[in-house]
């Protein structure tokens, strides 16, 4: 039902225009969508901890306090989240971990976007036309098809083992694994925009091909990748944790959530739950925050939600 169109000519309050309208709508939207607000707060906090987390804890992330640093003591006034099997303070390590987890996740997602979006736009723009660029984009897609068939976690594991367990290599592996998603999303959006009437109209009115590509197709093809990037950040955190859990991610004794869960895993059976429980909880909340922001952005950017 074309209800918005029906509304178009009816007199009502005069719409505000330009940037101030966008901001007003953002404010309206944020107040209306509480979950988006929660997501924004979590994302903000996670970035704050990535910057300052290692310095603001009651202990250092790899410090054994001479007085109270006994291994595997439960939560107490001295150690809010208890101590782990080495005697490190779990709370200090949990809030220091974003320094590693978030840097990996944000860096790999940013790199994957930087690689995937242009490739996707290229493939979408040239796909289905005669010429070498079209063949190239076709070849690119076939390669992605093949990569898609591999179990992503095992591939990540193999890539990191091939290059050695380190933060930089985890970033490289995740970039490699996430870029195809952005290629596909951007290509799909570009392809569907290429067939839209307004692009035809731009061509027919004599706009140069470059202007069509950069002014009309590309800006309208970015949204899917941008929305997906917040999910990708969450995925990257989860895969990083998984890699560390099997001992192929960040080396011991760094403060990283997956590694901390793994270190505490054997204590679970014995009922010592604090070394694993808290890092998992913080990891979950962080990933959730990024998911909420992604969902909120999707709704915010969807013009059909604005009625």
């Amino acid at each position, binding site marked *: *039902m074309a209800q918005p169109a029906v509304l178009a000519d009816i007199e009502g309050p005069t719409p505000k225009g330009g940037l101030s309208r966008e901001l007003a709508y953002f404010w309206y939207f944020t107040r209306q969508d509480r979950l988006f607000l929660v997501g924004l707060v979590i994302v903000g906090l996670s970035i704050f901890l990535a910057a300052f987390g290692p310095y603001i804890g009651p202990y250092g992330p790899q410090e054994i306090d001479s007085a109270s640093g006994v291994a595997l003591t439960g939560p107490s006034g001295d150690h809010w989240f208890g101590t782990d099997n080495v005697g490190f303070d779990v709370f200090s390590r949990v809030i220091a971990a974003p320094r590693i987890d978030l840097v990996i996740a944000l860096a790999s997602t940013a790199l994957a976007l930087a690689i995937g979006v242009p490739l996707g736009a290229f493939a979408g723009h040239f796909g289905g036309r005669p010429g070498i660029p079209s063949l190239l984009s076709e070849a690119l897609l*076939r*390669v992605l*098809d*093949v*990569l*898609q*068939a*591999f*179990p*992503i*976690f*095992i*591939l990540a*594991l*193999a890539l990191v*083992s*091939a290059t*050695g367990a380190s933060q930089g290599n985890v970033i490289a592996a995740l970039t490699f694994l996430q870029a195809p998603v952005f290629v596909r999303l951007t290509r799909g959006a570009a392809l569907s925009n290429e067939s839209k009437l307004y692009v035809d109209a731009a061509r027919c009115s004599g706009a140069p091909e470059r202007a069509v590509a950069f002014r009309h197709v590309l800006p309208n093809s970015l949204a899917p990748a941008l929305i997906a990037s917040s999910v990708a950040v*969450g995925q990257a955190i*989860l895969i990083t*944790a*998984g890699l560390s*859990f*099997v*001992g*192929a991610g960040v080396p011991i004794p760094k403060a990283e959530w*997956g590694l901390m*869960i793994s270190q*505490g*895993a054997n204590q*679970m*059976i*014995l*009922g010592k*739950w604090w070394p*694993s*429980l808290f890092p*998992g909880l913080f*990891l*979950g*909340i*962080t*990933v*959730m925050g990024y*998911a*909420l922001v992604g969902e909120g952005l999707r709704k915010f950017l969807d013009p059909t939600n604005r009625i």
Partner: protein
Amino acid sequence: MRVVLYIARRLLFVVPQAIGISVVTFVLVRVLPGDPALVLLGTNATESSIQAVEERLGLDKPLYEQYWLYIKDVAQGDLGTSLITGNPVREDLLDRLPATLELILLGLLLSLLIGIPLGVITALSGSKGWPDRLTSPYGLFAGSIPDFWVGLILILIFYRYLDWVPAPLGQIQIGVSPPDKITGMYVVDSVLTGNWEAFKSSGSRLILPLATLVFVYTAPIVKMTRSSMDEVLNSGFVDHFEALGLSRRSIVLKALKNALPPVVTILGVLFGYLLGGAVLVEIVFSWGGAGQYAVQAIANADFAAIQGFVLIAAVFSLLTYLVVDLLYFALDPRIKY
């Protein structure tokens, strides 16, 4: 007839993909660190013994020749010999795959049986109904936490505190002999052979890892069913049938068929992911499946074993996507062959 043509055309796509997979698998293993000759011989290897082993493994030949040898072997079903277990990789995988498949297949089946009704109910009651108040936070939470952590928490609650299930140490209690092998899946085989002792032991050990997978992977199914159903319920034909006074029930049943294809897709994606991703849950429960085997192989630079596992997993997901496409074809008459 239409179906046959479609399958034939779709199978044509599989061939280049399979070749691509074999190339990637081959290259992947070549770039892994660690010298297999050294792994075999240990630290007291001499220059000449290393050379002898390299010759035996064909590592001294040029790459393309090594690839050709590899393809010939694979075509004959020979995946090489594991450096660590000393068994043919094919045997190792055949021993361990059923354990992984039992976990994944049962897990996804249960997730589907729970997830689709939940998704439909949530879509029907709208964004302000009570099902949404339940499924949205659940989906958000389950989609954000690592599955291995869920496994650990379940162990803490149901083994350590409540003591409802046995210790998370493998598929069957030591001392209970596994059922006669039919599928290799302990629970399935013990039912098939009527071996109730084995069923009790393996079944009780399957509960927690299964619950872990179901808890985490029902979430994406609920989410996809819900959004797909939402879209169909907002489409023109539902609006039209509502305007003609069709009953809610008949409209929903119709919409469900329209809403299924994306759910099939997410199911395929989850299966492909879990083939490798279930390794984390396997480790938590000492499951001894194919995933755990692969992790061990990677840690020990066991070339043939890694290659074998990755190849098999990739082929499995290739077949999964094939099945997904065929289901799409069955569900949507608009797809041309």
